[in-house]
Every structure is written in C-alpha cells, then in structure tokens.
C-alpha cells in the first residue's frame, strides 16, 4: 500500500491548484431524449407502480423505471447501476431527491427487459437490489440522515430504522392504494438534516437526558461562552469546580430547563448527552411541503417516545403501520395524512390510530404553543 501522489505537492499547495470550478454541468449528463425535449414535455402517466412515461410535444416519449435504493451505497453497487444503465439506457441514469434511482429508456419495448433485469437482482443476503416502485399514491423511499454510521450527535440510527420500516412498508412501495402520496422521513436528531418536520410521517431521534459534565476537560475542549450561548433555554451558566485541589472553569446546567436539543454538545464535546435508555424516537405526523389544496404544514408530535430497539425497531415500525392503515382506511381520495387528521379532528386521529394521548403532546414551547390549544367549544366527544 505505497502512497501514490495525485500530483499534489504539499510543499507548494498552490502549484497547479484548481479551485471554485463548481459541479459538472448538467447538460453533460442528459440522456439524448431529455436534452432534445427539455421544457417541451406535454404530460406524463404512471403506467404501473414504478414505471412512468413522459410525452413531449415532438411526440417523443421517455419511459422511466424507478427503483428504491439505500442511500448508503458502495461503489460496487454504483458500478452495477452503471452496468445496467450501459446495457439499457445508453449510459445514463439519475437519482431522485428521495434516494430512488431512475433508469430511462426512449421507447416502450425497452421497458420490459429493463424491468425484468432490475427485479431479478438480489444481494447475497436475499434483499432486492433494485425494487421497482415509489410512484403515485403509495409510500416512496424514506429520506434520512446519517445516524450511527457516521454522525456525532444522533439519538438513533438512520439506515437501520429505515431498512426496518421499508421492509414493513414494502408492499406499499410497490403499490398505489393510498389516498395520496405518503412521505416518510427520518432525522436522527433534531438538527434534522432533511425536511422531516414537514413529512406525512416523521421519525425523529430524540435525547431525554441532559448533558453530562466532563468538568476536567470542559475548559480545554470548549469555548465556554459559546457553550452557554448555544442553549436556547438559557439553562447553562458558568461555574467553577474544584477537582483534586485544582480550581477549574466549567459550566453548570439547570436540568429542569433542558429540552435535550443537543446544541450545546455540538458546540462543546465535553457535554455528551447520548444514552441507551434516554435516547429514542419521536413520531410526528401530518406534515407536507406541497402547496396542493392546502398550505404546507409542519408535522405534529403524535408519539412522544419510543425506545431504540436495534436491529428492527419493532415499536417504531408497528406505530407507523398503525398510522398508515388508519389513514388508508379513513382518508378521502387526494387527502394527505395531515388534511385527513384536520378533517376528522385530532381527537379522532388518536382514536383511529389507536395511539394514547399524553401531556407530552401539548405544546409548551414559547408563543406558538398558545396557537395550538383549543380555543373553541367545537370539539368531538
């Protein structure tokens, strides 16, 4: 494993340096049928779950086969995607914002062999490499964050719970029986490196124990004023402690004020808060980003806490299945999950989904809380 230089010279870092060139130009990568008809598409149709056709003014058609993918992906897997794209799609492929992969062909007769090939490929462990689906009124791929595979602040894993959930929701990835699309998202802490706060169903990692104080190292590892300023509830203040006869600058935390956001830990590694029993999952529901019919909405907290249960997170997947089935049974055509909950009333939502209502679900965080309390005599028994 001898070191091989790229040509970079550490003694002269500016020599031949190229910077600020940006990403590759998108036009380098369009399939010919896309390049030709861009901006001139007439309409589209979902022919079956996972298969779309777009028809252009020119009469040209592009057929898309959409497959699910784990966003955590090896180069071996990407090369296999390339092999398929070379064989059927003229060497072009694309990804969607929801981690799906789209293979495009320019005529209908090319669809069946592509589909058959994709559907036949499995990992050695038995799972599908390229399950076809993720379109229309179904449940498409989960957008998610990094989790325990590579992040320093998570309160749950990402790839693990996503795999567990998608195994449970798999039939609905490959069908379109829902009243409208159901967008499921996961964020492994409330930094939310994705739009989970506006999803039909959001899986959110959450801590429940205030940070521990690593007094001996705190002043060495952290800028104390930054740690204090990081707290949104002003629960952190400067403090001095004596350890082994040594006076140390540190902080103290008013634990009853902590809402476990972990922002202090981001600023100060000497304030770790992760904990096996403390950490787990919050389920939120009823959000959306589309402006269709009603305005975009935030997801609401409907389950305050579920434990982390690797490897399969059964409490989380069961809860999601319950919400999905109640929604599928009760919502009108085109009605998103949040619109359904608002129409029937949140009291009915908890009843239909068989979820307990606890005090944790009543907002008590600052001014917006007031606007969520019921200020009318109109309610349902």
């Amino acid at each position, binding site marked *: 494993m001898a070191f091989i230089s790229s040509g970079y010279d550490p003694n002269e870092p500016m020599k031949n340096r190229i910077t600020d060139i940006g990403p590759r130009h998108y036009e380098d990568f369009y399939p010919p049928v896309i390049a030709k008809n861009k901006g001139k598409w*007439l309409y589209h149709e979902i022919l079956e779950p996972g298969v779309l056709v777009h028809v252009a003014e020119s009469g040209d058609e592009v057929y898309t086969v959409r497959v699910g993918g784990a966003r955590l992906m090896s180069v071996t897997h990407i090369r296999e995607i390339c092999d398929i794209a070379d064989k059927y799609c003229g060497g072009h492929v694309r990804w969607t914002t929801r981690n799906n992969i789209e293979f495009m062909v320019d005529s209908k007769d090319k669809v069946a062999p592509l589909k058959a090939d994709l559907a036949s490929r499995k990992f050695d462990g038995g799972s599908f490499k390229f399950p076809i689906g993720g379109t229309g009124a179904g449940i498409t791929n989960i957008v998610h964050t990094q989790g325990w595979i590579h992040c320093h602040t998570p309160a749950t894993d990402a790839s693990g719970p996503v795999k567990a959930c998608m195994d449970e929701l798999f039939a609905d990835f490959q069908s379109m029986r829902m009243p409208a699309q159901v967008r499921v998202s996961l964020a492994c802490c409330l930094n939310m490196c994705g739009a989970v706060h506006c999803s039909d169903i959001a899986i959110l990692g959450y801590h429940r124990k205030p940070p521990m104080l690593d007094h001996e190292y705190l002043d060495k590892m952290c800028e104390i004023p930054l740690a204090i300023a990081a707290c949104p509830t002003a629960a952190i203040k400067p403090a001095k402690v004596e350890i082994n006869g040594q006076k140390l600058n540190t902080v103290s935390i008013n634990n009853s004020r902590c809402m476990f956001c972990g922002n202090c830990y981001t600023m100060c590694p000497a304030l770790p808060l992760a904990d096996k029993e403390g950490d787990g999952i919050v389920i939120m529901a009823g959000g959306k980003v589309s402006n269709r019919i009603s305005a975009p909405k935030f997801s609401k907290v409907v389950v305050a806490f579920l434990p982390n249960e690797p490897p399969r997170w059964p409490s989380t997947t069961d809860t999601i299945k319950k919400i999905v089935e109640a929604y599928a049974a009760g919502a009108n055509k085109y009605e998103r999950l949040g619109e359904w909950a608002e129409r029937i009333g949140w009291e009915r939502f908890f009843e239909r989904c068989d979820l307990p209502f606890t005090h944790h679900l009543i907002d008590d965080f600052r001014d917006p809380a007031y606007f969520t309390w019921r200020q009318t005599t109109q309610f349902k028994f």
Partner: protein
Amino acid sequence: MAKHETPMLDQLESGPWPSFVSDIKQEIAHRKANPNNVELQIPAEVPEDILGVLELSFKHGRTHWKHGGIVGVFGYGGGVIGRYCDQPEMFPGVAHFHTIRVNQPAGKFYSTEFLRKLCDLWEFRGSGITNMHGSTGDIVFLGTHTKQLEEIFFELTHNLNQDLGGSGSNLRTPSDCIGQARCEYACYDTQALCHALTNEYQDELHRPAFPYKFKFKFDGCPNCCVASIARADMSFVGTWRDDIKIDQEAVKAYIGGEIAPNAGAHSGRDWGPFDIQKEVIGLCPTGCMWMEGDKLMIDNRECTRCMHCINVMPRALRIGDDRGLSILVGAKAPILDGAQMGSLLVPFIKAEDPYDEIKEVIEKVWDWWMEEGKNRERLGELIKRQGFQRLLEMTEIEPTPQHVKEPRSNPYIFWKEEEVEGGWQRDVNKFREDHKR
C-alpha cells in the same frame, strides 16, 4: 471469517428492501479480492471497521463518532467534515475517517462514464462507501484518512472537472428538482438557475463567512418536490401569472373515463368513476372553477396556483405561459427556536439568464444577515427577531397583502418618527397652556 462479529446487523440482511449491510459486505469482499489490483490508499478492511463500529452502536444505543476536527483542503473552509472514531484501537481503519461532500450536478443526472470515474477514485483513495446522496444533495464520500483529502481534491478538480460542496457556516450546496428536464409542471429551468447560482457564489460556498449555514433550493412548481419551502433559507418556487391553459377535449376524456385521473397515481384501488365535480371543482381551495355545459371554466384571477387541478388532469390543464418564480425566505428545521416555514418575499420574478434581478435580491438579503445576524442565527430567526418589515426595508421591496396570511391582530405598530405628522419633538410647556398640571 469476518473481522468483527455483527449479529444484529446481519439480521438487517433479511427482508425485501435493499440491505445496506449486504451492500457493505459485498464491498468488503470486493476490497479483499481486489480483482483489478488497485493500490488501495487506505486499508482494505475499512468497510469491515465501519460495520464493526455500527454493530457496537447497535449494542450500546449510542454513536461512536466524535466531533469533527479542523480538517479540510487548503483554501476552503467547507466540503470536508472531520470525523474521528471514539474507539480507535478497536477500529483502527476508521480512527480518522473524514467525509467529503462532492457537489452533485443539477438534476442528479449522470453519465456512467462519470460515475465510474468517481467510483474508481473513491475505491482507490477512500472507503468505497458513499451516500447517493446526502440530505442537502451532495454526493457524499463516506470516510477517508486525512492524508488523502488533498489528493482526492486534486484528482477531482484536475481529472474530473469537479468541485466540492458546502459545509459549515457557508452557502450549502444548492439543489433542485428535475424541472423542465422531464416535468411538464416546471415553470422555470431549475437546473439552469441552480447551476448558475452555484457557480456565481463559489466563494460563499467554499469559504465560510456567514453567521450560519444558508441553503438555496429550487422547486419548479408549487408541488415542491425538493421541499424548498420547508428547508431552504431561500427557496425558489416556480409559478405563473396568466391563465391555466385548458384543452376542453381532454377534459371530456377525463370525464368520460378515457384518461386516468392524476396520471394514474391512484390505480392501486378502485375509487369509482372519476367525478370532476367532487375531485377537482369541489377541492379547489378558492372555488374558482365551474362547468358550463361540458366546458370547464376557470376564473384565473382568483386562482392561487395550488396545482391540484393540474395534477389531477395533466393532459387537460397546463401551467400558464407568463412564467417565473416566487422567492420565499427563512425556512429551517427546529434547531433552535422551532421550525420555520419559508415566508413569501418576492411574489413573482422572472427567471431568465443571467438572473440579475434574482441575484440582487439574494445579495441584499445577505448584506443584511451578515451585518445583523448573530453567530449561528439562521435568516429565519433574524427575520423573526427584527421583523418582516425590516426585511422588506433592507431588500427595498414594497409591502403588499401577498406578504401576509392576514393583517396583524394587535395594533402595537412601531411607528417611525418620520411617518407621524409633525414628528415626535413637542414642547411640554406649550401643551400645558391648554392642559393645566
């Protein structure tokens, strides 16, 4: 024999959904076999250590990754996320294991030639494990050693004509929907605008000079497939301001059941025959549609362009021709003061190259935020702290009813002195001539 026992992760190889565990295992096998005799620049067993660390987290219920350190490439303040394992003796292959964000092409179309080059580079100088893609949109190279960072950057820029994405307090990698490339709803060329602004603001993207992160996202229409309205400090949502185009023959075909509604999105269940009154006209949020005989009528002046009717009948209804975009500002996730949705700042602006009008709005917003924003204060939080009026003032945009959902319900107006006749300077003694003490 696996380097680490991973009984819990092995369980995740079962079930139909693509297993990331199986995928990482195939990468482990590939690196061990090394069929192309690649001179791997970081140890072959790195993916084994990744699985090992993850299994330990499954056991402990806690992450084993530490905060990033100051690593990166010379002259950039972003694009590389430093990452260290807190069990380096157990997992030496990933003791230091930094992430590289590679700026994805707009629209996420790829040629296999380019993808293969990325794969070759990442197998040679990294773990061989990626995210396709990270939440913000980048191609994420998941883990390499410190010494490889400059080498990878050099190869990306010299051999692949490819730059890094953003991280830290800078412009984060902009991302867009598929737009006009393959969608009939797109009201502007999202890829063109995304690419143009990404290149215009390379300095802001690579060299952190902002109070905190700043995100651009580009949605071609109000369906908002990239969720710009929920997560971008500045979201660009396509819209139009003339009339929806109606093909009355196609309307008849929908009513007659010849064309499936909503492009066939509901075919998994029998919802009964299509009912235009119930499914389109009755669900229109402004009630601006009606039938005259067998003709569908729209009072376009009252339409708020929610997309529902167009989504249901894409072959009969098309977006208007006077197209552009709306700019909304201030969306963010809950950290710290709660989540914020984007608020409408510019109701309509044309999206035409070289986009000077759009850049003018962006730069005015940045000037204000960079001047007034506190450390780690997102734009949305600054707008809340100083008021929407201040944003309008700083961007020189006239207030209109479009800016609000409803007018304020309290009269606590912060009048400015120059707005009040005669100003605020008064003579109390003169007042007392009429009002005795």
